[in-house]
């Protein structure tokens, strides 16, 4: 079943030297519970595409539908995780950060506490529920951000290079954790990254974008069983294919 439909979407914005086309004729469908990675060099418009789906921007051409309804703005059917650790509210504990979306929905105190606890447990941070963001490491902060985006139960999870600012070891750990969380919650995930190995490790399907203007150049289905072994030959073969589509080293 098609969950997200991106149909012939174009996006232009006013640059200093006339209008700039960031995206042209982008068409992508994402199935329900599918994990889709958008890969491309910096400036290829992948974050723009994510912001369009999130409803922070609106397409200048084409349309985006989620569950058949055209996206006109942000909504509680989508959760967003950014790259910046500063996305958490520093004046709220981990627990209260996770509760924020539920609070906006008007959930009662007991339900909020209980749900937030459950999602903190999911990302393995139950012990740190009372900690403020500055007391947590970068990886832990991003885990809180994931729990926060999931807690109000959106059907779609949008992630913009959430692990790009982490060290390599933590990143590996976080990727494993994300696959587990996804397997348990069965959300539809749209994940932006410039790291090819990360995309192959995480995704059911990888969409490769080329820059100036952003267009889809490849759609690769990663048919590897999970958990995946990044050192296996098949894994490396996928990486080679995608890097080939990117035109050189990703």
């Amino acid at each position: 079943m098609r969950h997200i439909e991106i149909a012939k979407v174009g996006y232009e914005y006013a640059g200093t030297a006339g209008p700039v086309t960031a995206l042209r004729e982008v068409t992508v469908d994402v199935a329900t519970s599918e994990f889709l990675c958008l890969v491309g060099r910096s400036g290829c418009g992948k974050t723009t595409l994510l912001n369009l789906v999130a409803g922070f921007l609106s397409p200048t051409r084409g349309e985006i539908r989620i569950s058949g309804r055209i996206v006109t703005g942000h909504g509680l059917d989508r959760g967003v995780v950014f790259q910046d650790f500063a996305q958490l509210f520093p004046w709220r504990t981990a627990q209260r950060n996770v509760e924020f979306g539920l609070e906006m929905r008007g959930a009662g105190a007991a339900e909020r506490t209980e749900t937030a606890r459950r999602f903190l447990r999911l990302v393995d941070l139950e012990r740190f529920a009372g900690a403020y963001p500055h007391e947590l490491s970068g990886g832990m902060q991003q885990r809180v951000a994931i729990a926060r985006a999931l807690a109000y139960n959106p059907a779609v999870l949008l992630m913009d290079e959430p692990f790009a600012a982490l060290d390599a070891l933590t990143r590996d750990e976080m990727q494993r954790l994300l696959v587990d969380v996804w397997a348990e919650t069965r959300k539809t995930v749209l994940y932006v990254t410039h790291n090819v190995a990360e995309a192959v490790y995480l995704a059911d399907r990888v969409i490769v974008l080329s820059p100036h203007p952003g267009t889809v150049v490849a759609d690769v289905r990663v048919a590897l069983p999970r958990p995946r072994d990044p050192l296996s030959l098949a894994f490396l073969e996928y990486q080679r294919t995608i890097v080939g589509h990117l035109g050189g080293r990703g």
Partner: protein
Amino acid sequence: MVALVWQTVVMLGVMPARLFPGVDRVVATFGRLVGNGVLPTHALATLARLAVGFALGAIVGVTLGIVMGRSRWAEDVLLPLVSVGNPIPGLAYAPLFVIWFGLGNLPAVLLVGFAAAFPVAVNTWTGVRAVKPIWIRSAIAMGAGERQIFRKVVLPGALPAVMTGLRLGLARAWRVLVAVEMLTSVPLGLGWLIFGAREFLATDVMLAGIAVIGLVGLGLEKLVFEPLERLTVVRWGMLAR
């Protein structure tokens, strides 16, 4: 240490003892004035004026700052007024306030509030504008409406800067108040005590009064603002200490 040097100089008799009382005399006077209730009475009168004036200034300042931070129109119009008014020493208005509002408590309290409002407004404005866009985005993504964003994101996000403003405002209010008490002939108050003591060359009383003024200023900082900050912005890691 400074006390030791002071005492030596005084004992050497380089300067007239009447103008430069020894430490022992200042301490004795301090004890006497506390004992007979003169210093506490004056200090209380001053503190009451400070509380009323500062509360006024803080309310006006925070409101102005928020309005300026939220509306471009208000910013364009109010900011020039605030930035010209800010560097004028509050005390310079004192004679004017005396003409407008007479002598006594009213001009003193109003002037304190007036002087305190500027730094509060400027810092609140800065704070509201410095709220990180990513916080607002996150809140929007989680379905927060305009008012919820304001209450749950903008206000706490601006708090560190508002605190700074209140702190600067209080410090300024305190300085203005002490001076203005010398000019508006209030019946009781630390500034008045010092100024009045000059008539009788009572330098020991003056120094004792100055000491109390310093102590109260230090106390406001340590007892009011530091705990308040520890509970909020320092706890949140938004302020390096």
